[in-house]
């Protein structure tokens, strides 16, 4: 929190209104024109003030894979990317399938102090897809888990998926499904296409994702539960979700920045930095995903930030790990693909990166309008900066697919619970939270 008043002057809100914003303690103290208050004044002319970003899908790798990322380094990368809250995925070692692990992750997040770290609980014990994990205990723990996911693996058993959906309904939980039929994707390496055929890489058919989504929206309808679909990657998935929403099924969906920008063509040189699950798809899928974001079929942008060591990517494609980092570039990719193309405005951008993910997870202090009395979780973006992505990063890993690419929009300041975690695009070493 700010022990001294911070006054952000002349920033524009997502609706275009230009205001001064005063932050004191953990909250927004005042919003208005030419605020006559004493404190540290920060000129934000040309910047857009947005609700702090919320990532519903982050791999922080701790405990167990600290060589790739820790909760501290991942939190810093998140702050650098304008996030004030992240959801730490459960596929750690040990797996976050019980109250002890989620409380530990929660506590480490608080100790790091850069963002609110909300643990995600596993749906099934040890992500094995055999029996339900301690869902209620995780929900009632200090970590107050309400999002459950076996991400990295699909809850493929229909009965287990049905029970999971039913079970979490009692405490308004949500199952975030990694939609991938395991039988249709044995040894799969890239999008199933003529390019995969040419490269001799085992195909990953769209139907492996779409069949699971189709089944799960029907299950969610049948039991009246809330379903969230992780990293939607195909045009067919979009159509199924659009149909489900029109039918009134309680489903939300996310897309990653990389699926909004990158295509399967990048696999051509067998550079494993482009190996990811779900795989990069065709240009027509990318276009369908962008349209779905604009028309509301897709509710949120989530990074699926997946750090991996250099060794696990400096090898043959078939041997390499799946995944790419994304926290620090997410907003820039979103701006480049959605705002600069005229598909959405900043109001929709704010919903995608803050309001909606916070709502899906039920976060009390995130995704709230930048109004007096609300929590001071704020991100200031300079939309007119064009830059080449460099390898300078707060993340411990450098499996960054955007290196050398030209993107637009830069995170200038990030305010987490009233304190600057990022100022003038630099991570702050001492945070007063």
């Amino acid at each position, binding site marked *: 929190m700010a022990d001294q008043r911070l006054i952000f002057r002349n920033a524009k809100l997502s609706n275009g209104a230009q205001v001064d914003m005063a932050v004191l303690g953990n909250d927004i103290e005042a919003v208005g024109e030419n605020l006559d208050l004493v404190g540290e004044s920060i000129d934000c002319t040309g910047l857009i003030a947005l609700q702090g970003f919320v990532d519903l899908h982050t791999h922080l790798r701790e405990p167990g894979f600290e060589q790739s990322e820790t909760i501290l380094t991942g939190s810093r990368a998140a702050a650098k990317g304008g996030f004030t809250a992240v959801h730490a995925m459960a596929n750690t070692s040990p797996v976050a399938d019980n109250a002890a692990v989620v409380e530990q992750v929660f506590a480490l997040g608080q100790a790091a102090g850069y963002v609110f770290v909300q643990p995600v609980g596993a749906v099934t014990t040890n992500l094995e897809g055999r029996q339900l994990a301690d869902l209620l205990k995780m929900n009632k723990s200090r970590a107050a888990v309400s999002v459950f996911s076996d991400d990295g693996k699909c809850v493929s058993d229909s009965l287990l998926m049905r029970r999971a959906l039913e079970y979490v309904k009692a405490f308004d939980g949500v199952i975030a499904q990694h939609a991938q039929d395991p039988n249709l994707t044995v040894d799969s390496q890239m999008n199933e296409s003529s390019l995969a055929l040419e490269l*001799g890489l085992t195909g990953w058919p769209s139907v492996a994702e779409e069949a699971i989504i189709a089944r799960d929206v029907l299950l969610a309808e049948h039991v009246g539960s809330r379903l969230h679909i992780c990293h939607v990657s195909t045009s067919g998935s979009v159509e199924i979700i659009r149909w489900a929403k029109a039918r009134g099924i309680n489903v939300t969906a996310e897309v990653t920045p990389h699926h909004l920008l990158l295509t399967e063509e990048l696999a051509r040189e067998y550079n494993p930095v482009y190996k990811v699950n779900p795989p990069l798809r065709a240009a027509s899928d990318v276009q369908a995903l962008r349209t779905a974001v604009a028309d509301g079929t897709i509710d949120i942008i989530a990074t699926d930030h997946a750090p991996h060591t250099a060794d696990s990517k400096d090898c*043959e494609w078939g*041997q390499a790990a799946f995944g790419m980092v994304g926290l620090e570039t997410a907003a820039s990719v979103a701006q480049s693909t959605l705002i600069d193309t005229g598909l959405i405005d900043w109001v929709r951008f704010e919903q995608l990166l803050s309001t909606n993910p916070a709502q899906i997870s039920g976060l009390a202090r995130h995704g709230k309008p930048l109004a007096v009395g609300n929590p001071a979780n704020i991100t200031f973006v300079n939309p007119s900066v064009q830059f080449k992505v460099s390898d300078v990063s707060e993340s411990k890993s450098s499996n960054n697919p955007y290196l050398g690419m030209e993107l637009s929009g830069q995170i200038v300041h990030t305010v987490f619970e009233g304190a600057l975690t990022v100022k003038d695009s630099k991570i702050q070493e001492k945070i007063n939270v």
Partner: protein
Amino acid sequence: MEMQKVNTRDIKKLPALNGRTVANLFFEDSTRTRISFELAAKRLSADVINFTAKGSSVSKGESLKDTVQTLEAMGVEALVVRHNFSGAVNTIANASWSDASVINAGDGTHEHPTQALLDSLTIRQRIMGRDSTGDLSGLKVLIVGDILHSRVARSNLLLLRKLGAEVSVSGPSTLLPEGISELCDQVYYDLDEALSKSFNAVMMLRIQAERMNSAFMPNPSEYSFGWGMGDARFARLSKETLIMHPGPMNRGLEISSAAADSSQSAILDQVTNGVAVRMAVLYKLLAQERN
């Protein structure tokens, strides 16, 4: 063709690569390709070492990068690589791991370039004459079998078509994925229909037993019935049509002995030409570099 002459001499050896070191780096079982490369290198007087690691690099506890760099540190100038992962040879060639010349001896289900070279040479010499030169314009070739998983098929589609031949494929539809039509001239699900079109050469591919387990086809006898070059089909085949197979053959499954051992068969020519073609590749990469 110069290399073919060397192979028919009494003393089958040239001093061209004397003092050069070639490593056969085989991460996947292969006897014939390894021996063919080894003979090719030896006939050019290169020193040859064989490095065989079954299975993935991980199972032997060393990364591909470390293996490559270790061999280069010992002074190996050319790496002949067979790997079970598609693209692994590209990765070695493109990564900054090594300056050694890299020759693809087959990577996963991707490519097998020297096989395509020896197949084109065989087709040209058997059909257009031993001393023929030039490309394969006007010739029609049919590749039969597991196109989806065949690196031999991929490399042949690329090279034969580049040389002007018309290349069609035939096989079970589960092994002829949708995008295949972009890579070839004609797709025939029905082999008998294909064979009625009088091809200059028919290339039968090896069928792997594990394809039955992953439900690509019901069983071996169903495969033979539909897509094998059995005695009956062979009897109906034009006597002018060349029969090829990259080996090793499953006699009685994708090809009958009558077909394989007939005078129409070019299968042993393929093997013979393999040594010459690999000599030429090694010579091109290593001898000319020296000059």
